[in-house]
């Protein structure tokens, strides 16, 4: 063969190729790093407009005072009640969405047969796809009047429907547990029946008393923390369900089989083996769901009642509250943007607070997922 072979090219050509490749790759890298740049920019620009607020007013008032009178001369910018309101609806929605979401995720991953699962998934996707303003509209125009007019009755029925079956279970399980020590079987059965009767009376009493108390409640305003919490839980559910389902799937068949083979029921397998193994992933799901609720604007703006108070008593979900996001959305229009007053900057301070929350929780959820992967691979 004379001189040139088919795949050895001249040094110059090879170098040109290398350079081309390098340029191409760095261009791609630049585009890919755009996202990171955006994150930095968001942080920078929100912080830039937030810092003047703290320079003007310091930290103490913002975090410790509940006096929110931004339009006064001079204004008062105590955001404690607003931060509390954000926390309250987030907690409320988590209380609803987390148990429901985890139960639904378990059902999807371990209980439903494949052909039904195919129909359940789009339901979740559609729940996630409905725009927040549509949920807000629902909360304000349809749900709030219902709550206001039939609030007590709705609460009572909810209590009965939820607590009824659980109390029945509790009666059975308690009866079983109390009598477990009795060695004689016939005697044990008799004793258990007695115990069941006793607990039934207690449970019925509880059911009736709480139901009655709830029925007597008069909800003064349908636009309140409860309304918002319920609607926000609809919005957080899809995130919680799909992320926890992934976590449950990641646990793998082997562990489940190991538990079944020892004579565990499905519930025991899931609660004692699968859930603990998937707990980190589920925690991540919960964090992401909570972030969704905390960062939501339209629903809380439209349906929370927007009163900047810490409810009285502090856990009263039937009171109106106000959240960070709604305050930003509602106050920005009238704030004096040109003059850069505290009233303008305080909204950015709230934005910064939200941003830091989201950064931190995102960081934690990522860590947590890494940890789960490590645990499951046995390190």
């Amino acid at each position, binding site marked *: 063969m004379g001189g040139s072979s088919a795949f050895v090219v001249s040094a110059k050509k090879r170098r040109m190729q290398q350079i081309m490749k390098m340029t191409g790759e760095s261009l791609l890298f630049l585009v890919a790093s755009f996202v990171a740049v955006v994150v930095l920019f968001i942080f920078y620009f929100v912080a830039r407009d937030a810092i003047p607020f703290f320079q003007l007013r310091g930290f103490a008032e913002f975090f410790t005072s509940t*006096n929110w009178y931004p339009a006064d001369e001079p204004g008062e910018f105590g955001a404690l009640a607003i931060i509390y309101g954000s926390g309250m609806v987030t907690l409320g929605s988590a209380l609803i969405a987390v148990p429901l979401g985890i139960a639904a995720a378990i059902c999807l991953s371990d209980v439903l047969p494949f052909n039904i699962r195919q129909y359940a998934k789009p339901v979740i996707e559609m729940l996630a796809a409905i725009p927040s303003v549509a949920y807000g509209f629902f909360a304000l125009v349809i749900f709030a009047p219902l709550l206001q007019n039939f609030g007590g009755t709705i609460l009572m029925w909810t209590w009965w429907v939820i607590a009824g079956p659980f109390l029945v279970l509790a009666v059975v399980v308690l009866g079983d547990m109390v009598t477990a020590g009795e060695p004689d079987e016939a005697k044990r059965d008799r004793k258990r029946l007695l115990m069941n009767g006793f607990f039934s009376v207690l449970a019925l009493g509880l059911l009736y008393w709480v139901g009655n108390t709830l029925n007597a409640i008069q909800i*003064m305003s349908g636009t309140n923390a409860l309304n918002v919490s319920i609607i926000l839980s609809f919005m957080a559910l899809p995130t919680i369900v799909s992320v926890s389902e992934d976590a449950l799937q990641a646990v793998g068949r082997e562990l489940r089989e190991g538990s079944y083979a020892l004579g565990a029921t499905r519930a025991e397998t899931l609660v004692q083996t699968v859930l603990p193994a998937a707990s980190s992933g589920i925690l991540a799901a919960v964090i992401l769901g909570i972030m969704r609720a905390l960062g939501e604007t339209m629903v809380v703006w439209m349906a929370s009642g927007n009163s*900047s108070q810490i409810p009285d008593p502090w856990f009263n979900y039937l009171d*109106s509250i106000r959240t960070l996001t709604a305050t930003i959305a509602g106050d920005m229009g009238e704030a004096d943007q*040109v*003059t850069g007053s505290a009233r303008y900057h305080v909204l950015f301070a709230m934005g910064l607070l939200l941003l830091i929350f989201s950064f931190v929780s995102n960081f934690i959820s990522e860590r947590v997922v890494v940890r789960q992967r490590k645990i499951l691979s046995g390190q």
Partner: protein
Amino acid sequence: MKMFRKLLLAAAIFGFTAGPAHAGDAIVMDGSTTVGPIAKSFAAYFTKNYGVQVTVSESGSGNGAKSLINGACDIANMSRGMKDAEVAAAKSKGVDPVSHVVALDGIAVVLHPSNFVSALTVDQIRDIYTGKVTNWNKVGGPSAKIVVIQRESNSGTQDSFRSLVVGKKNPITKRAETQASNGAVKSRVASTPAAIGFIGLGFVDNSVKAISVNGVKPSIDTVKDGSYPVARPLFMVTNGQPTGNVKKLIELNRTADGKQMISELGYVNKY
């Protein structure tokens, strides 16, 4: 005068529009939601009768001021006066804000019709809004806890109500529920027997009961003659003295049609 108008018209035809020379010959309005209904009606009227495009953004008085200073709008609708700081900022950018009263707005204090109370004094209203009085039986009504309804802090109506009734120094009770608009306050009061709220005079209908304040019933006449204590002017602010179509739009409130529109909307004419 006629001559002058013709000249103006000619100026408009030749495209000499006042203010910032952007967006062709369209007029851009931005600002208060309270002035919004008037602005929107004026805009529709103007477009229909003169063929001039008018766009209206209701993004709040503060945003309106900002837009005017940035030159992004021709008219800023304001439900409050320009603040000193805003005027200073405008001056530094070479913008000379001139305020025009477009209409007067009476603020009616409204209760649920089932409430026996039909008159309150300014002092009583202040006590209710500051949280000193929390039950209707303290002001001659039935025994029921008062549900206090206020507007967003960015609302011009809220601003006026505070300065005219509550007093700027006195904070409104934190229990007060906040609604986003006159309409929302009205429907809230209409659906809550123990509620008290305040709305623009134009929004009052028979679903709520507008009460007398200091013995004066709110009406167009009492607002106009100044005897009703809770009234305030609404502004349109321009850069420098307006000319051309902008001037015509601003001065629409002096024409018969303009006056009619204002009163149809439930505001009170200044002229």
